[in-house]
């Protein structure tokens, strides 16, 4: 076997066919958002000269990734449908969604014995005044117990109330009414609206995949049409190899490894120049339209006047890094809301500690203290956040008043409720002038989004026809 050879087909090798059954049937599924064309296997992705490229061809080339994304889109719709049915069940049982939420709050309230046990266990981490300690702990236990209370109530209602579901077709659009709960309609439009962020994300990813696959395929089509015209490239000389190695004195390089790399790079660069000429002569035209991202009205979320809102928590390492970046070079005033995926006593306690530390300008110090504490002997203490915050805030009295207040407790829960309503699935996440942005962000990217104002950051209209 030769020492080292770039793969002969590396410049044109298509992805190998997946050997698993991919969800081809779902490509045709009812996946589009409102007023948007369906993405089916026959959808026209683009043209290269007179040659039409359909979605099925691109999907096969990409190993079925597009059909998988469209299947996830269908799953997101299914989850949203179930959530709307749940909301309708609760609204029917309690008169309205707001009344249902209040009833769930009451159901999640810990009983006196539970509260006493928890108080005895965590007393040293809580405010000295007994009334305040009870209030804080009641809030934490209620928040932690709320999902369980909700599940139990829903299980009971699902067994008691009438739910009629429409038959959902394997392909084609869904009916306008997807279900009835005690005769009250659950409409497709409200389901789509509730799931607009995951729906946008899956469609945008599908279109991005189609764009990527189309670009590769277009190059292949153009190259095949111009077969034999690809320029020859001279291999690197011994001098080229020696120079490359000399320029990297710290690296442990050998001519045996460097030569094929340089040869490959020359061929690849020459091929790219050649392809660029072919593309200029016969421009491939992408015809798929990218979806518009959803935008949330800050007023509706109770967040008016906050152009940059950060949703995160103290347990996530990228969150710590994000905080460091934002602190060093803030692109705008940052409104912080606690957010996490799984309800846990420690996370709720951290959230409350964060809200009250922020009130005294000590949020940064709390983060620093908590990150250090997480690696220390108290790491398992669920109320570590409260302990650390109590030790670092400038005014202890104001701190104790804050964490016992209803307003702080509401604010500690706000991020969770708003983040879930938006559909965030990861931390850190942001709302930038109402645009939901998920995941760690560089400062430049945040500046770009803030400067974009009302504009959509990735408006790629179809190209050509």
């Amino acid at each position, binding site marked *: *076997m030769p*020492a*080292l*050879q*770039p*793969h002969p*087909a*590396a*410049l044109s*090798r298509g*992805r*190998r*066919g*997946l*050997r*698993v*059954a*991919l969800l081809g049937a779902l490509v045709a599924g009812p996946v589009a958002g409102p007023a948007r064309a369906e993405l089916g296997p026959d959808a026209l992705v683009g043209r290269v000269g007179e040659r039409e490229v359909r979605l099925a061809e691109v999907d096969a080339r990409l*190993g*079925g*990734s597009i059909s*998988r*994304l469209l299947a*996830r889109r269908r799953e997101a719709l299914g989850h949203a449908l179930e959530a709307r049915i749940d909301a309708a069940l609760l609204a029917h049982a309690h008169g309205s969604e707001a009344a249902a939420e209040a009833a769930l709050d009451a159901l999640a309230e810990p009983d006196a014995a539970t509260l006493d046990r928890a108080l005895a266990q965590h007393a040293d981490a809580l405010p000295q005044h007994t009334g305040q300690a009870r209030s804080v702990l009641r809030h934490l236990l209620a928040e932690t117990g709320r999902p369980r209370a909700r599940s139990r109530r829903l299980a009971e209602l699902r067994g008691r109330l009438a739910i009629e579901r429409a038959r959902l077709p394997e392909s084609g659009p869904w009916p306008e009414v997807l279900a009835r709960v005690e005769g009250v309609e659950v409409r497709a439009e409200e389901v789509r609206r509730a799931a607009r962020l995951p729906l946008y*994300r899956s469609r*945008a*990813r599908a279109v*991005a995949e189609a764009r*990527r696959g189309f670009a590769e395929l277009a190059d292949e089509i153009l190259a095949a049409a111009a077969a034999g015209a690809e320029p020859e490239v001279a291999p690197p000389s011994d001098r080229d190899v020696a120079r*490359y190695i000399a320029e990297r004195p710290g*690296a442990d*390089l050998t001519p045996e*490894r*460097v030569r094929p*790399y340089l040869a*490959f*790079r020359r061929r*690849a*660069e020459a091929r790219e120049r050649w392809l660029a000429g072919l593309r200029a002569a016969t421009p491939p035209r992408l015809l798929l339209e990218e979806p518009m*991202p959803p935008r949330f009205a800050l007023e509706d979320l109770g967040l008016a006047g906050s152009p940059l809102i950060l949703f995160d928590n103290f347990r*996530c*390492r*990228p969150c710590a*890094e994000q905080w460091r970046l934002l602190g060093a070079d803030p692109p705008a005033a940052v409104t912080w809301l606690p957010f996490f*995926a*799984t309800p*846990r006593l420690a996370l709720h306690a951290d959230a409350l500690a964060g809200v009250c530390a922020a009130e005294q300008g000590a949020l940064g110090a709390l983060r620093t203290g908590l990150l250090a504490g997480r690696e220390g002997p108290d790491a398992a203490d669920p109320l570590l956040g409260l302990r650390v915050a109590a030790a670092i805030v400038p005014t202890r009295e104001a701190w104790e008043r804050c964490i016992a207040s209803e307003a702080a407790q509401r604010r500690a829960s706000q991020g969770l409720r708003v983040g879930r309503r938006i559909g965030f699935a*990861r931390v850190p996440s942001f709302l930038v002038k109402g*645009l939901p*942005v*998920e*995941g*760690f*962000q*560089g*400062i*430049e*990217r945040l500046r770009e989004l803030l400067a974009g104002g009302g504009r959509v*950051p*990735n408006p790629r209209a179809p190209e050509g026809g």
Partner: protein
Amino acid sequence: MLRTRGLLGLLSIGALLATAPSNCGGPQRPPRLDPLRLYSIGDSITTGFDSWFIGNNDAVSWANGFHGFWEDLFGIPDIDSFNQRITASYGSSGRANVMAAANGARWDDALGQALGVAGEAPTLVTVLLGGNDVCRDEIADLPTDAEIQSHVRTTLSYLHSQLPAGATVQVAGIPDIKLLHDVGLAEKGLLGIDCTAIWATTALGFPCGSMLSPDNTEADRLYVQSRNFAYNDIIEAEVERIHRLTRRVYFHFTDAESVAFTGDDISSIDCFHPSADGQALIAEVGWSDGPFGP
């Protein structure tokens, strides 16, 4: 992929090559053993590095992952790993689930990890290595074909000599590392994670200069991808060779190069390792393709 070099050179390659299989034809292959005793050889993909929480996530490893009361309580995803599928299909009696995989391992660490089979008598060994051979600090420092071939051949020969008759070795190719890079980059345009910022942030980053360095050109990345593909061809050829030449153990190659990762499949912590969804996808592709699949 993090590299913490493990056992190396504990046995001389020369001595092992001497034990390489040579029996063509010969007796029939023994009946295939049920995959009750699972043993994984691999790198940070198999340890579930950054797949859910920061660091290793054994519970969401495509090979050894598990899901029980505590995982459910803490909201850790159920990825339907090889280990879970084995229990579902063959029951929990007589099970073993051993992870020898280590972050940063390369193909030259495979033999060191394989040495552990001696006391375990596994009936299914999974091997997924090579990401760290593709991921080097210096783009012109990737292993030669001969080096990769030697490590693969030595490891498979050792497994052949040590495993119970009728055991299975399932070797996966290297996922398309450039695809992970390309998919990660695309996320930013979809209001998703800003991977370039993550890769540039050393506190979160890790060394995979050959693919992730912002100084690399597209031609550089295509070269690394070409090596990725070439290694896979070598691995596949070696697996087929030993299966053809021997009779005691079943060897099977699975194409992981074509696993169609998309944005959800990439870790939101480091923008490069598979996420829990990505681990589930690897498990699905590997199991469906393997000898115990549907």
